[in-house]
């Protein structure tokens, strides 16, 4: 079944590495929530200026879009820690214990690989924007390396959380896919 429970959190079992990663991911989650709230407030301010004061707005729309993107990417590790990324565990549920363990190690490893790819090329993309001084083609003309920074940061932190998840499963601190033993 698609699991999306609100109570589950990746256990850390008092392991210092897992606790450190959990703390980092949680801080990332606070940042992400803060950016979403900031987006709400800025949008309301924009509407106030436009419809109540009849003024014109320059930077708000763009800022809000970049805030939501950054909130998404930087929120990734926290949502991973909360087991909030929906998945379908039909195959794991059908497997015996050992095969389930192997599948979990495999899926986590492949996830780490793809997130690593995103981190590598995401860093490249950010670095390009930074080196060449790209700016958005709007009136505000924001320096694009600032919003792009969320790509390597978000995927970097997600990579860290996934490595911690793999470590926890290998060490037996967490069960494969967070499922109870069948």
């Amino acid at each position, binding site marked *: 079944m698609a699991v999306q429970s609100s109570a589950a959190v990746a256990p850390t079992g008092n392991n210092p590495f897992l606790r450190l990663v959990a703390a980092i991911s949680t801080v990332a989650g606070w940042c992400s929530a803060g950016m979403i709230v900031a987006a709400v407030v800025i949008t309301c301010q924009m509407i106030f200026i436009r419809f109540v004061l009849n003024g014109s707005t320059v930077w708000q729309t763009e800022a809000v879009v970049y805030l939501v993107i950054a909130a998404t990417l930087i929120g990734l590790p926290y949502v991973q820690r909360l087991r909030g990324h929906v*998945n379908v565990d039909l*195959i794991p549920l059908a497997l015996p214990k050992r095969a389930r363990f192997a599948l979990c190690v495999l899926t986590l490893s492949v996830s780490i690989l793809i997130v690593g790819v995103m981190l590598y090329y995401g860093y490249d993309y950010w670095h390009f924007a930074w080196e060449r001084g790209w700016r958005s083609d709007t009136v505000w003309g924001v320096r694009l390396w600032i919003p792009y920074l969320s790509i390597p940061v978000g995927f970097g932190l997600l990579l860290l959380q996934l490595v911690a998840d793999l470590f926890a499963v290998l060490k037996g601190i967490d069960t494969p896919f967070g499922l109870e033993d069948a």
Partner: protein
Amino acid sequence: MDPLLLGALVAAVTIMVLFSGVSVALGLLIVSGGFLIAFDGMRSLELMPEILFGKLDNFALLSIPMFIIMGAAIASTRAGADLYEALERWLTRVPGGLVVSNLGACALFSAMSGSSPATCAAIGKMGIPEMRKRGYPDAVAAGSIAAGGTLGILIPPSVTMIVYGIATETSIGRLFLAGVIPGMMLVGLFMAWSLYSTWRSGNASVLSAGSYTWRERFEILPRVLPFLLIILGVLYAMYGGIATPSETAAVGALLCLVIAVVIYKLWNPADLWVVLRDSTKESVMILFIIAAAGVFSYMLSSLFITQSIAEWIGTLDVNRWVLMGAINLFLLVAGFFLPPVAVILMAAPILLPIITTAGFDPIWFAVVLTINMEIGLISPPVGLNLYVINGIAPDISLRTILVGSLPYVACMVLAIVLLCLFPGLATWLPDAVMGPGR
């Protein structure tokens, strides 16, 4: 490799990967990355972060976290219980008033909260014990709440519709309006079935019950009106041309948070954090799937799969209703296993050209697709609502809940058939309010 064969291979691999327990978004990235490396070479991976970022670079997406905050703020309060009580007090004279008010409360609350499991929990906690106490059959008590909870993805404001609008570049305002009449039609069908099956079970006497004084009726109103006014205000602002969906949603989110704090006294920072945490979690989850699905559809079109499938269907020369039937069947099966957002994002880029070539209206199709997704929400193995009901009424067996929900699934299928016969049910209101167009 022939693009069609490649398409079949992609479909098979995607299903395997998604069922393996990996998260949906990462699964889509894995499949996209794998096929891009295999058929386009390593260098094609370079573009992935840029496409992912570009997919999120859209002001319309802002409405998703905003509507989710709005819903989470409402769901964290007693608003569900109040709404239920208010409807019950006002509808006691109506035959079967209890089940009617339960379904009405489900429809309103799920539209406001946008969350199907939250609706089942909020309304079901009060409604199911009350219905059973008054002698309604267990199957009706459980089934009506399970089905009622699914209405939120059809009745505006609906995150599912926003996602469809973004994936297919159709007007979110039109999509919202298109869901209104079919949504009310479904509520009507659900009510009709509930009353009929209660009457048939020989407990017809329970259909008339209790009475309240006018004082009791009026004193509950102040507690439910604020949220209802916000929802109406948001919709008015959108259709009055005052602001875009994203902007009104932001105002709605702020107002709902304020009301939750002021009227429902949600001023403990820890409680407030729970609302923010849950909205962040859900928003990030959905937005990441949207971004990853963007990479996925880039992979499909850069390997010419999307185009070839559309061309192939064009050459098949089947009756368009047979085609629509096949598409519905496909969506239904996909909805049994995958969350609605994922189905829409993966299927829309492939299905939309087919749909429009066959002469179907994409707005109308959104409604049909959404009802399909609703069915998935109350069907095994994923049907989250069934498990929520099982959680709040543990002494009703999962089997009874399942059997009780089946007639409501039939109502939804009937609604799809009616929509096929009378497409105006979905398209009339958007055309009437926003002018015929597109």
